[in-house]
């Protein structure tokens, strides 16, 4: 494992995902004087407290000005500095969309964006602060690597990878308070390679972010209740996406469900569907996520339940998709 920081189960329990990000970036900044943190009045909300303690002179706060934040980051990067830019995903993807597109991606600068409070993780703040179209926006931009970590350990791995590799990275994390998926950082994280969380041959659930743990729990339940072997893939990297893992799932399980705290238009589900369709290998397919609707206000877990991207929603979807058959007849009506 690269990097000089390791987090224990205790720190994972005690710290939110974004706090772990804050610690990870503080560790990097202590080692490398050419790394800075840039934020737009969200240093505390995006958990840069540790950085403020160790290198306050390298925290650049531009005030409430996300467009400026990306422009400044691009200028810093062009001059040889690696900026870690943090802000709420709703604003890093939408408010400063042109700057992300032009200053960061088009110029292909070495800037790392940590987009916090993504999906509906800041549920009570309402749709102005939900980010359910950010994956669709960012994924379409050339040059950028897009990662959606499932928990704090994975966030630390993603931050390490972003630091180790040149180019724009967009790491989409939650508000924090995520439940633990992994036991430690050593599970073989690799950018662009899905992680199999649960083996299975009946159906594959491909998830990202906070939906991965829900998929894992759904798989456990379905094995006990229905005797189903549900493969669960943590597709932490949305771009470049792991085509090999997707096509393996198509041929070995012939049923795929995608789950994301994002619109079903343009995000993980769309990315997976593109791979399946372009391979010319059809399979039963269902996308779970926000169904072209703005989400209600509420606690994150309540919104996930209502939208059907929690364990219950996944269980129901798996049972529905398992009804699909693949008879070699001309009747398409009984297929999924």
């Amino acid at each position, binding site marked *: 494992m690269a990097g000089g920081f390791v987090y224990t189960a205790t720190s994972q329990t005690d710290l939110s995902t974004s706090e772990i990000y804050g610690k990870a970036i503080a560790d990097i900044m202590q080692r490398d004087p*050419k790394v800075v943190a840039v934020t737009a009045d969200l240093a505390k909300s995006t958990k840069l407290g540790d950085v403020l303690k160790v290198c306050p002179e390298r925290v650049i706060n531009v005030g409430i000005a996300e467009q400026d934040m990306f*422009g*400044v980051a*691009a200028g*810093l990067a*062009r*001059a040889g500095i690696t900026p870690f830019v943090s802000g709420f995903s709703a604003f890093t993807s939408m408010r400063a969309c042109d700057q992300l597109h032009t*200053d960061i991606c088009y110029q292909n600068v070495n800037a790392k964006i940590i987009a916090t409070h993504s999906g509906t993780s800041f549920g009570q703040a309402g749709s102005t602060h939900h980010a359910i179209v950010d994956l669709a926006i960012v994924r379409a931009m050339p040059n950028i690597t897009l990662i959606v970590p499932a928990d704090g350990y994975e966030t630390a791995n993603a931050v390490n990878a972003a630091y180790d590799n040149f180019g724009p990275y967009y790491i989409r994390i939650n508000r924090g308070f995520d439940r633990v998926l992994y036991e430690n950082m050593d599970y073989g994280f690799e950018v662009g390679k899905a992680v199999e969380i649960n083996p299975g041959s009946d159906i594959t659930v491909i998830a990202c972010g906070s939906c991965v743990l829900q998929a894992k729990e759904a798989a456990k339940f379905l094995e006990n209740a229905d005797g189903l072997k549900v493969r669960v893939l943590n597709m932490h990297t949305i771009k470049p996406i792991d085509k090999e893992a997707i096509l393996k799932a198509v041929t070995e399980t012939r049923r795929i469900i995608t789950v994301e705290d994002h619109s079903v238009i343009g995000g993980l589900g769309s990315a997976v569907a593109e791979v399946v369709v372009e391979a010319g290998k059809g399979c039963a397919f269902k996308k779970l996520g926000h169904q072209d609707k703005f989400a209600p206000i509420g606690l994150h877990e309540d919104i996930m339940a209502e939208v059907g991207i929690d364990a219950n929603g996944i269980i129901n979807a798996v049972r529905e998709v398992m009804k699909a058959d693949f008879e070699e007849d001309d009747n398409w009506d009984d297929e999924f």
Partner: protein
Amino acid sequence: MALSKQEWLALEKKAHELRKLTLQTVAWAGSGHIGGGMSILDLLTVMYHKYLNIKVEDPKWEDRDRFILSKGHAAISYAPVLCDKGFNDVEMLKTFNLSGSKMGMHLDSNKVVGVDASTGSLGHGVSIAAGTALAARILGKDYLTYVATGDGELGEGSNWEGFMTLNHYKLSNCIVFIDRNHCMIDGNTEDVMKLEPLADKMVAFGFNTVTVDGNNISALCEAIDAAVARSKEPCAPSCIIMDTKKGAGIKTIEGDYLWHYGGIDDAMFEKFNNELDEDYKVRCERAEKEGE
């Protein structure tokens, strides 16, 4: 203090050559942002032939001064300046705007050598310049960052975010130019979206602000000298509002907002070339008369 006659005349000569090359590039391309390209050309000339500490043989030299053309559509004159300087082959100008060319209406910093930022979408340059100037402070380097915006461009709110950052971090190592040519696509700036009192606005945003005739090379250099002199210690950033004429040097189109972008035929090319020659004579007379 005004420039010496010798230096002033030399810069006028270079500016004239670059205006001719710009007009030639418009002719090769068939059309171009000729108005805004000409209004800013005196600044581009003094930047690349007097002020910028750069190395043509080492365009990515990390200690170089930076120049960020926020009004990226002035590429029609910026590309000739960069080619003439030796960063790119002058022959490339013959492909300007053509399919497959490395050079288009807005320059790509990853394709055209010597370009410090890819601009085009307006309102981006100031923030990029702020980041570049901040980097100098963080890295302990003494290079300067120059950024040039248009005046109509200032309608983009992002400029004012960038101005706030420059002021807040006392980035006097960044010098902002505003090409005040009074025109934008749909008309005169004060008719489309009122900008005045522009100098007062810049002062209110914390800038040490001066307004000069941006098509008078000597006056422009005086203002830049003063801004450079106060760039060493962190203090209020400098803003030089360049009062210019859209299409400066070509009498037929000077000050006419309709020449924001335009195509020219052979007859126009010849006429405009003659007008540039006439303008050059007047400029040289002024340099002879007013130069030190």
